[in-house]
């Protein structure tokens, strides 16, 4: 059975486990083997977004508005899609400037303004308190409920005394103790807490598993799966409405404003900024988070509707608060282990949020609110103290307790009037006020400090008036007439119908007015002003963060400083030992052996300031550094000059980059050209080798027979004449070959002479047939011609066309060595060309050979037993000639069935010969 002692024991054991994880994480980090340096831990730590609001409240909201709980998770999912640009920029800026909190970020952007940092901190403390109280409420409620196991009894707050008489107060103080132990054991310049992040990631796993466990239990244990729950719910009229996308799930404006609020919250809630930006180990982890984090949100939301419907059907009559269904359903079903697991899951969700949120807040309260004030109070003589690091820790611990007490008070006075979700949304609305200053700040250089201060203040005041104060009024802490009649009885100032705006839910109403005031003031006042030098330099650092190197901050400083002063300054805030370590490290990076050898130049001052910024915030750091060095103020003109120079350097480096791209392109072109040259060279070598071979063959016969004739004077006349005939024939072959090589090379190189005139193709045909008739009749080959009676004249070189015809005819004769050889020459007129076919009935050409016969020195005759006489250049030359006149030459054939060589000559383009384009040189 679950007794109070068991529950408390298990809770403490669980917290002990968290400590163990955090301790291990810190040890590993000190040893340089970070356990959080992987994207999955990073994503799980981002899931600190899912608090007890998600764990208990989503079901509560789903019970009243169906899928109306979804926008809170839709927003982050949408925002995550923009992270690769927006969040990456914020992370890079923060790392470059050692920014440790959202207040620091805004203050730093607007000229390291202490006032702005303080304002942001105040807004956050007030804005986040309701959110923290929400967690307290969840823990306290769930604790009360599980204590009553196996009964399902709603906790009754009446009778609980403030502070010591109230369990919730003890819970708040225990949380404060955890937070102090987790977050402020020592002071670190980077404000990074590796162990804490590991523990938070672990908690994210526990709460997800606990929620899914309940979901599975309800869906498959109490009902028969999703279908069963939804079918049964649809039979109940009230529940049926929940399943529809009707009024219950909220109007379009409600969806839009909730989505927008959660988009801002995922970036600007102090705890989200802490885990996403400050604790980020490697900006590449962001890439995985962009899709994994939405997946986590999806997983934790799958069972929200089934649990809500199951609870509504199980506890009829509204006796049980829907916010508690996650816990009360297992209790009602007598599942002690599951109930305990759920309680631990809820505890995880709540403690994770409270711890990270209060650590982030306490850092801000200390760095941006209290320290600037203390350092100004001369009476405290803090400037003379040697080591302030102890004081820092004390302030932070005090701030943690203070924030949790505030949360407790809000819970005590206002908590009961609202459901979990509504309380959370009040905080979201406060956080959304940072959106203009931050998003404007990283994309718009003209935003000014005054603009940001005015915008934030205006938005915050509207939020206070339209959302926070009404929450007090509803809980009876302020007179309720404040809501119905407005301040001073002015109807127009009714906080939830400001200036008569009605018809919106109170969150959308607040969002509308606060954003109007905020953006209006920020943009309006920024446009009216000229930014100061400091603002200008910071604006450039932030807006151009993705283009610049991270060290550019030191350029905006000029003055005289001493190394000892800087060491002493840093020592006061980080402790002398850590300060010396930091400077030694710096000296080593500069190639110096000792701190003494360092020169207090702009870089060192900037280094000191950025280290200090990690500990006390950029605004305070700026003030501290300014107090120990003798600075020459930079005028706006000088800053502009520096920026101009920087942008010139940037422009120059872009030019260089472009040049190097061009160079690379040129190199590639050269490489390609070289390849082509090599290929051409290889072709040339092949050509020469083939020509040589073709020349050697007739020469071999000539030489052999010459020597035979010379060595054998006694040969009879018949043999002598036969051998001499061979010599003459081979000499002719040699001459023909040489002429053709020269001819082809002339045509290919464009040096051939062309004598074009208007000619009648029929005449060319007739003449060529006459020229070969002797040869054909010798070989017994029939030769026929067919042509229309009239064809249009073409403009071409007559001799060249004769050469083409003779070549094709002699080829045809060569392949027709059978007795019934027959060759037909046919001239036809096509649409805009003349076509000539030379058809033979010879041996034909195999498909493979058809592709290569037009190459130089290809002789299909190689496959014959009787090798045809020819140079192998005829068809190559023919093709060159035809293409010179803009025509085409091709062959159709099948082995054994004869071949048809065809070519066309264009009719109209005849007068304008095109340079042959088919050959590359």
């Amino acid at each position, binding site marked *: 059975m679950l007794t109070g002692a068991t529950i408390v024991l298990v809770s403490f054991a669980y917290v002990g486990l968290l400590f163990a994880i955090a301790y291990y994480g810190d040890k590993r980090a000190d040893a340089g083997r970070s356990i959080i340096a992987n994207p999955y831990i990073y994503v799980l730590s981002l899931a600190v977004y899912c608090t007890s609001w998600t764990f208990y409240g989503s079901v509560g909201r789903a019970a009243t508005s169906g899928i109306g709980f979804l926008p809170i998770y839709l927003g982050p999912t949408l925002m995550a899609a923009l992270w690769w640009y927006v969040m990456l920029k914020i992370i890079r800026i923060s790392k470059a400037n050692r920014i440790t909190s959202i207040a620091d970020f805004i203050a730093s952007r607007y000229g390291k303004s202490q006032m702005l940092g303080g304002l942001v901190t105040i807004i956050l403390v007030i804005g986040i308190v309701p959110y923290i109280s929400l967690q307290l409420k969840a823990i306290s409620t769930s604790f009360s409920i599980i204590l009553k196991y196996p009964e399902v009894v709603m906790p009754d707050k009446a009778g609980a005394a403030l502070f010591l008489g109230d369990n919730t107060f003890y819970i708040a103080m225990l949380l404060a103790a955890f937070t102090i132990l987790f977050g402020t054991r020592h002071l670190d310049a980077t404000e990074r807490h590796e162990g804490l992040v590991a523990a938070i990631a672990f908690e994210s796993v526990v709460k997800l598993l606990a929620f899914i466990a309940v979901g599975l239990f309800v869906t498959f244990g109490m009902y028969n799966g999703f279908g069963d729950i939804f079918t049964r719910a649809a039979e109940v009229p009230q529940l049926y409405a929940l399943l529809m996308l009707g009024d219950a799930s909220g109007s379009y404006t409600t969806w839009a404003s909730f989505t927008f609020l959660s988009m801002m919250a995922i970036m600007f809630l102090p705890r989200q900024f802490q885990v996403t930006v400050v604790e980020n180990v490697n900006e590449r982890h962001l890439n995985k988070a962009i899709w994994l984090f939405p997946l986590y949100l999806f997983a934790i939301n799958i069972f929200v509707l089934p649990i809500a419907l199951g609870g509504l059907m199980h506890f009829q009559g509204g006796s049980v608060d829907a916010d508690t269904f996650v816990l009360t359903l297992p209790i009602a079903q007598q599942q002690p282990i599951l109930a305990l697991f759920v309680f631990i899951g809820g505890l995880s969700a709540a403690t994770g949020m409270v711890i990270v949120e209060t650590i982030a807040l306490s850092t801000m309260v200390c760095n941006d609110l209290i320290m600037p004030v203390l350092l100004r109070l001369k009476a405290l003589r803090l400037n003379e103290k040697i080591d302030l690091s102890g004081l820092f820790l004390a302030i932070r611990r005090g701030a943690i307790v203070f924030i949790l007490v505030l949360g407790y008070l809000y819970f005590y006075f206002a908590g009961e009037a609202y459901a979990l979700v509504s309380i959370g949304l009040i905080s979201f609305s406060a956080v959304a006020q940072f959106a203009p200053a931050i998003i404007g700040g990283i994309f718009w250089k003209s935003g000014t400090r005054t603009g940001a201060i005015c915008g934030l203040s205006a938005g915050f005041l509207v939020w206070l008036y339209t959302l926070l104060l009404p929450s007090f009024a509803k809980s009876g802490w302020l007179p309720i007439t404040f809501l119905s009649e407005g301040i001073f009885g002015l109807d127009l100032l009714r906080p939830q119908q400001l200036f008569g705006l009605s018809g919106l839910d109170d969150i959308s109403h607040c969002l509308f007015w606060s954003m109007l005031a905020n953006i209006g003031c920020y943009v309006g006042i920024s446009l009216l002003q000229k930014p100061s030098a400091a603002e200008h330099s910071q604006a450039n650092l932030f807006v151009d963060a993705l283009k610049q190197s991270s060290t550019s901050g030191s350029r905006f400083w000029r003055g005289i400083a001493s190394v000892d002063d800087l060491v002493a300054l840093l020592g006061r805030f980080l402790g002398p030992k850590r300060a010396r370590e930091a400077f030694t490290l710096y000296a080593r990076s500069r190639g110096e052996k000792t701190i003494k050898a360092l020169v207090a130049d702009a870089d060192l001052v900037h280094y000191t300031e950025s280290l200090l910024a990690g500990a006390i915030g950029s605004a305070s750091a700026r003030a501290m550094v300014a107090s120990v060095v003798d600075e020459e103020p930079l005028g706006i003109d000088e800053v502009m000059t520096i920026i101009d120079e920087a942008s010139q350097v940037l422009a120059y480096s872009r030019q260089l980059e472009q040049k190097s791209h061009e160079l690379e392109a040129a190199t590639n072109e050269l490489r390609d050209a070289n390849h082509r040259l090599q290929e051409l060279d290889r072709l040339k070598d092949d050509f020469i080798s083939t020509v040589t071979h073709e020349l050697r063959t007739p020469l071999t016969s000539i030489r052999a*027979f010459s020597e035979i004739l010379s060595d*054998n004077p006694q040969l009879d006349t018949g043999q002598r004449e036969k051998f001499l005939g061979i010599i003459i*024939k081979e000499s002719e072959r040699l001459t023909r070959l040489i002429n053709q090589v020269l001819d082809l090379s002339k045509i290919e190189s464009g040096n051939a002479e062309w004598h074009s005139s208007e000619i009648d193709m029929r005449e060319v045909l007739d003449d060529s047939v006459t020229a070969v008739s002797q040869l054909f009749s010798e070989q017994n080959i029939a030769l026929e011609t067919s042509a229309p009676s009239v064809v249009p004249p073409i403009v071409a070189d007559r001799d060249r066309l004769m050469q083409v015809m003779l070549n094709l005819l002699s080829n045809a004769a060569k392949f027709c060595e059978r007795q019934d050889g027959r060759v037909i020459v046919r001239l036809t007129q096509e649409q805009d060309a003349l076509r000539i076919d030379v058809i033979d009935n010879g041996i034909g050409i195999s498909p493979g050979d058809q592709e290569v016969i037009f190459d130089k020195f290809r002789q299909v005759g190689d496959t014959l037993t009787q090798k045809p006489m020819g140079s192998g250049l005829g068809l190559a030359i023919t093709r060159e000639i035809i293409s010179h006149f803009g025509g085409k030459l091709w062959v159709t054939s099948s082995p054994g069935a004869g071949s048809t060589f065809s070519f066309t000559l264009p009719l109209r383009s005849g007068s304008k010969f095109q340079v042959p384009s088919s050959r590359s040189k």
Partner: protein
Amino acid sequence: MLIAEDEPSIVLSLEFLLQGAGYEVTTARDGTAALRMAESTRPDLIVLDIMLPLLDGFEVCRQIRANALLGHTRILMLTARGHQRAVEKSLTLGADAYMTKPFSTRELVLIINELLSSPAA
């Protein structure tokens, strides 16, 4: 003696020269014919052109060397290319000698006489 050569006038000159030197001569006009003839006539020597149709001289040389029945056959490669590579390849494939076209007829007869008088390897 086998002449494997596809150029008719060169075949004619070789036939005249070798018959004049007292050898019995058969001819083949392509690579496969050369192999077939070599197996059937088992010549003492083959004058082998490299650029043969169907099967080139290198391949003919390789197959003859792989044939135990033709162990005594000498091979004289004829090449119109004169590339050092072709020469080296001929010798590694087992040719006994090579000549570049156009060749000296006297030298050809001398080399053939010499090849046939030396003992088989």
